[in-house]
């Protein structure tokens, strides 16, 4: 029972992080209709910027996280402007290849010996308290991950559902031509959506990095997982991304705990294959 509860906390924290990264990816896909393979790169940059703020500049954790989120948001918006926007009318394979190129470029830049270097690094944990919840010991950082990701998801939901700017993102993903006809500047919405996706990825990375290690290739691993998640949930679907994220996190964590840690990733992707075999459109199929 203790093991179960322990794993429950682990899975919730992992699911929260997956959800933040997957939400950005699914929003961008909904608006641009292009899978952003560089998304994992934004996640990785978020981790390194936070790391740099904490260790090199000696900033407090929260400040490092916020600055990292802003920087990555700006980079994501520039990426839209200078890579995806010029390729908007090109065959889909071109922006996809360009995005992979950007991912490799980011990795190479970070892995450069004069920047951060290729090796794994440990981010100092900002919260060292250990909390006892019903006989289960949970690190303060994990609780922070869970609380922060829930907060951000609710904030995002409020933004999308209750503000006009948020509505323009949903409108554009549901009918791009219709959005242009009512006078929505789809270029601005595209940049904004990229910026949000970058900020979400950076926040997720800043939250989980003190638990895991940071490395230049961390984005590639995350890429695989979040693409699996949004395929699982339905490409472009917001609730699909959230449900998919927690489904994958629970399958991985419990599979790892009760069967074998070596199989954690295998189990996650087995769930993906199973869902797609039964519901090829993903769990939350989009109408139209």
């Amino acid at each position, binding site marked *: 029972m203790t093991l179960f509860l322990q794993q429950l906390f682990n899975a919730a924290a992992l699911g929260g992080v997956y959800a933040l990264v997957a939400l950005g990816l699914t929003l961008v896909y909904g608006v641009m209709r292009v899978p952003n393979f560089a998304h994992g790169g934004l996640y990785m940059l978020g981790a390194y910027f936070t790391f740099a703020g904490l260790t090199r500049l000696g900033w407090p954790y929260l400040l490092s996280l916020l600055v990292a989120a802003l920087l990555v948001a700006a980079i994501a918006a520039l990426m839209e402007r200078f890579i995806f926007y010029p390729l908007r009318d090109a065959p889909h394979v071109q922006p996809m290849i360009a995005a992979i190129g950007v991912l490799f470029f980011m990795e190479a830049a970070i892995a450069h010996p004069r920047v951060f270097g290729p090796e794994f690094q440990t981010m100092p944990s900002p919260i060292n308290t250990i909390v006892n919840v019903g006989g289960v010991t949970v690190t303060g950082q994990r609780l922070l991950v869970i609380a922060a990701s829930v907060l951000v998801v609710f904030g995002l939901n409020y933004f999308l559902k209750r503000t006009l700017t948020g*509505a323009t993102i949903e409108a554009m993903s*549901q009918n791009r*031509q*219709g959005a242009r*006809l*009512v*006078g*929505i500047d789809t270029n601005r919405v595209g940049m904004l959506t990229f910026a949000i996706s970058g900020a979400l990825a950076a926040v997720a990375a800043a939250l989980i990095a003190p638990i895991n290690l940071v490395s230049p290739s961390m984005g590639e691993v995350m890429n695989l997982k979040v693409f699996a998640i949004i395929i699982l949930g339905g490409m472009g679907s917001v609730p699909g991304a959230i449900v998919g994220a927690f489904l994958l996190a629970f399958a991985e964590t419990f599979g790892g705990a009760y069967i074998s840690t070596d199989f954690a990733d295998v189990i996650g992707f087995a769930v993906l294959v199973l869902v797609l075999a039964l519901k090829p459109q993903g769990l939350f199929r989009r109408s*139209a």
Partner: protein
Amino acid sequence: MLEIRDLNVKYGHFTALRGVNLTVQSGEIVVLLGANGAGKSTLFRTLSGLQRPSGGSATWNGRSLTTGRPEVNVANGVAQCPEGRLLFPELSVEKNLRLGAFVHRRDASGTARELERVYELFPALVEKRGAPAGSLSGGQQQMVAIARALMARPQLLLLDEPSLGLAPLVVEQVFQAVQRVNAEGVSVLLAEQNAFAALGIAHRGYVLEGGQITLDGPQQALMTDDRVRSAYLGV
């Protein structure tokens, strides 16, 4: 006044519109008759700034409509209710309407007033205001599409095939609404295959065939023209 002069539109090597001249005076309802593929929707897309012409000009009250920025055209008073409606299917009816007023987003009270007006024009939408637009019947979706265009407070309403796929009774309701909107001072350019209903409410009309205007004249002249009667009225 809408003034279209020598308008040419090409898709690659295909010429969709050739030398189109057309005007809509302030306060008029002008109907544009034409079969599928005649170029009606291309003309409308061009007037909304979604399609750049290869030659010629289109202006509304002297302002160019061909700058390639749809949001500028909407802000200048030209709104389109497109063929196929292009609603936001998962958003509520009211959110669709509010997004129609996007260019007036800094004027909340004006938008609230306009919302009341369109609900008065289409009372059937009031009880559906919270429902996803995609869940409505075809006729109600058409009403949402027209109402969404009106939310932009246009001076010129471009209506592309509003009767497509609707039951005759609903078509009548939609056309009555168009007449009411026009009576309140909005000029209307109406593209239709349903020539009989459209000519019934129009002041003047044009016939578009193969991307060219082949005939134009006042309502009565078109109603009695043999070519129009055989090709579009089925008599």
